[in-house]
């Protein structure tokens, strides 16, 4: 896997894939997170949960069934061994800790593990959908996002400024530059992506963080 051949989104998706264990039940947000399964090694297979009501989300097989869509409303399929259920049960699974990992995008994340990704007041108010339940209930919350906004502004902040999706919910932040983990000691830089220096990360990160010495 040569990082030089990949764009930022691919680098992020590939790194997220390494966080998943064989047999994990995983919910992937819309966009970048849906690329993650492409980077799973052959001996790791995860079960995708779709919050609109099933486990075993897969690609469309054969003809499109208009009654099978993913959580973005796009045509999808179900793998053998999957199961459909209603929205109540879907969120019993999510809120009840039966989803091992949720991977979602972020507008802002902060040093306290807060996440903001559902609205920009006065501008973009799509609604939270299932995101607030996912970050509250999933055993492991991975935020997969580009390190900075399009204008270069940091997205990993000392404190989120946008309305929160969840408070103190984030476990891992994965960007094209680095991997951070939220620990009892606060935010820790746990890994640098290939060819990235600590200085580059510091420069593009507003939040203060500790550095795992093992990364060098």
């Amino acid at each position, binding site marked *: 896997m040569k990082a030089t051949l990949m764009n930022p989104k691919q680098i992020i998706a590939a790194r997220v894939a390494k966080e998943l264990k064989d047999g994990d039940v995983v919910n992937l947000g819309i966009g970048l997170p849906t690329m993650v399964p492409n980077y799973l090694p052959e001996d790791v297979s995860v079960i995708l949960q779709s919050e609109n*009501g099933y486990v075993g989300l897969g690609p469309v097989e054969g003809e499109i069934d208009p009654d099978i869509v993913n959580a*973005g409303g796009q045509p999808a399929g179900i793998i053998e061994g999957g199961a459909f259920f*209603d*929205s109540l049960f879907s*969120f019993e699974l999510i*809120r009840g800790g039966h989803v091992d990992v949720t991977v979602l995008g972020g507008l802002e994340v902060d040093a306290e593990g807060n996440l903001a990704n559902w609205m920009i007041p006065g501008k973009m108010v799509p*609604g939270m959908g299932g995101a*607030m339940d996912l970050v509250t209930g999933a055993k492991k919350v991975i935020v997969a996002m580009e390190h900075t906004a399009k204008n270069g502004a940091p997205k990993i902040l000392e404190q989120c400024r946008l309305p929160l999706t969840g408070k103190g919910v984030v476990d891992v932040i994965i960007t094209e530059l680095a991997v951070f983990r939220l620990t009892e000691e606060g935010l820790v830089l746990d890994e640098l992506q290939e060819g990235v220096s600590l200085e580059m990360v510091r420069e593009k990160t507003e939040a203060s963080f500790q550095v795992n010495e093992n990364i060098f």
Partner: protein
Amino acid sequence: MQKLMTMEEVPSILNDGMTIMAGGFMGVGTPEKLVSAILEANLKDLTLIANDTAFVETGVGPLVVNRRLKKVITSHIGTNPETGRQMLSGELEVELVPQGTLAERIRAGGSGLGGVLTPTGVGTVVEEGKEKIVVDGREYLLEKPLRCEVALLKAFKADKAGNLVYHRSARNFNPLMALAADTVIVQVEHLVEIGEIDPDEVMTPGILVDKIVVAGGC
């Protein structure tokens, strides 16, 4: 009791200003022909409870676009830009509710609970105006029941007693809403005789269903 009714009779049980629920997720599992009946009957000032406002031309989307709603209680409006536009301009009241909480509130309304305590939304704007209750050291929000006058459901198959079977991911909110309405109308693709659905396969028992409209297709 005769539960079968024609699409033409649907408006007779709907009124301006009613609170309605509609099944569906991004339009999948939404009874679009019942939605059309509302549009054709020129109903207005409705309060709609639904997972999302779908797209401009599908699901419950046209109810927004054609200004039939006074208020919507929903988890997601991002795919129908008209909802956001009307919200920002003050034409439409929008109450955004986390999707799992929306499901819980509808279930509470349908099952006689006074509410549920959920951790979802603690520390966010969702907690505004809500009672916080600590159980075993963790904070929860008290989320209250939702009910409606008429629920509009879509099922794949019904028998003449109103027993329903949903198909694939078109199930979503439909079974929950069947419990939370004074009157339940279901648009079904296939109608079968009583006894043709195995009692283990019924997803919504007929005792909850008041009216069945056969609309075929998908």
